[in-house]
């Protein structure tokens, strides 16, 4: 009885986009949430310029849904403004990836990572 995965999840799990991270440097922000001990952890890093996100990298420790969510989000966030990043909510990822109900909590961890990223941006250029 393995859990089922949507084709979008399988696609991102098999071919994750933008895995890895940007080294700390000019215009680089970073947001982390969760932990390995807790079973789910996300690290997002982004390159920002002129009030827009130019590129995103993700690292994830978690189930296939989580890895797919990190990958999917790394594409989704590109081009967002500060305001748009601050307004991002987990339901966006849920719609695209159809998380099973019992895994919804993991999307909240992803949302926390986005929030941390957004806060890092504020600290970078208040």
């Amino acid at each position, binding site marked *: 009885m*393995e859990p089922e995965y*949507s084709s979008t999840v399988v696609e991102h799990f098999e071919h994750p986009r933008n895995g890895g991270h940007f080294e700390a440097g000019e215009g680089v922000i970073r*947001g982390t949430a969760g932990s390995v001990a807790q*079973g789910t952890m996300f690290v997002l890093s982004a390159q920002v310029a002129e009030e827009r996100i130019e590129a995103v990298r993700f690292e994830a420790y978690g189930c296939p849904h*989580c890895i797919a969510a990190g990958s999917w989000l790394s594409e989704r966030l590109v081009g967002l403004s500060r305001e748009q990043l601050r307004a991002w909510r987990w339901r966006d990822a849920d719609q695209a990836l159809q998380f099973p109900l019992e895994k919804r909590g993991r999307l909240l961890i992803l949302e926390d990572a986005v929030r941390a990223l957004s806060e890092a941006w504020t600290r970078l250029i208040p």
Partner: protein
Amino acid sequence: MTPSHKSSSPAIYLDYAATTPVDPRVAELMIECLRPEGAHGNPSSGHTFGTRARSMIEKARQQVAAAIGARPECIIWTSGATESDNLAILGVARFHADRGRHVVTSRTEHKAVVDAFKQLEKEGFEVTWLKPGTDGIVRPEQVREALRPETQLVSLMHVNNETGVIQDVAAIGAICRERGVAFHVDAAQSAGKLPINVEAMNIDLLSLTAHKAYGPKGIGVLYIRRRPPLGLRPISYGGGQETGLRSGTLPTHQIVGMGLAFEIGEREREADVTRLSALRERLLKGLLAIGGVELNGHPTERVAGVLNVCFHNVEGESLRFGLRELAVSSGSACASGSDEASYVLRALGRSDQLAQSSIRFSLGRFTTEDDVDRAIAIVSREVGRLRALAPTSTPTP
């Protein structure tokens, strides 16, 4: 949601501890038995159809008895190890309940044993749950210390289904015999892999199943010592077959299959074990080379075909999904499907995370070197890929 599955090359079967394919020689004999000219008679009937079936059953009884050093009249046919475990544990404890209500087992037994003991707890018995060491082994001294004047039964498995770790049942049997306590052994995972001799090992009750030893599913055996007789209360009632201990018409074709499977298993045991040990070492070497891989359970006190390892810094569900070209198990088959970490690995001191990131590879009669090499390549690829995606260190924001 459309479920998607990788469907390139056929899966590599490395799950022999869950169940084995039926040996073609066994399948052939069973089919013969099922044909019109086979043996369809009820083995309890006195006519020639019945006596033909009966004689085939008695031959199979001898075959299984010979494989475990028992006398044929000590063999009771059941539907498998689950039923044998239940009959042995509930049967002995209930029969002797007026003499004492203390029983002993371990925390790493199969569910068929654990849940039978939990049932006894509900019936007012006191159960001592022995805790094995981090190597998975219950020391015979622990058993000795647990025994009380009112102890009726000790039940410990020969080989653990998740880790492949071997218990010293002969030493434990000697202690129980000395103290006059009945000793039950679940040998579902050791038949055909280790020598078993119920007399020499002082075993009073022994559970066997055919489907882990290249026989059919749905047939098993409970060995019961007859001299001196061991009191046992049946768990089901009916036509009184098998000396009243297990009523129901005997399934001739299943029994014949189990008999031959055990005869072959014993005859080919040493050759099988030598071949499987080499394959397992090859697999272990390949997996350890990946790095961040640890063996679960004792390094040497283990059966040939089973390898249980944990992978550091890889999440369990992603690991299993990444490895779906391999037919392997995480935890035990009945426990998977739930997100719960294996209680066996937890008892050995593994964290929830590591228990969930553990995989049991079990090899068998039809496993080839090529299967093992392909498995190593797939595991290496997926573990490498998932680790590359995992957070490298605790980053500072």
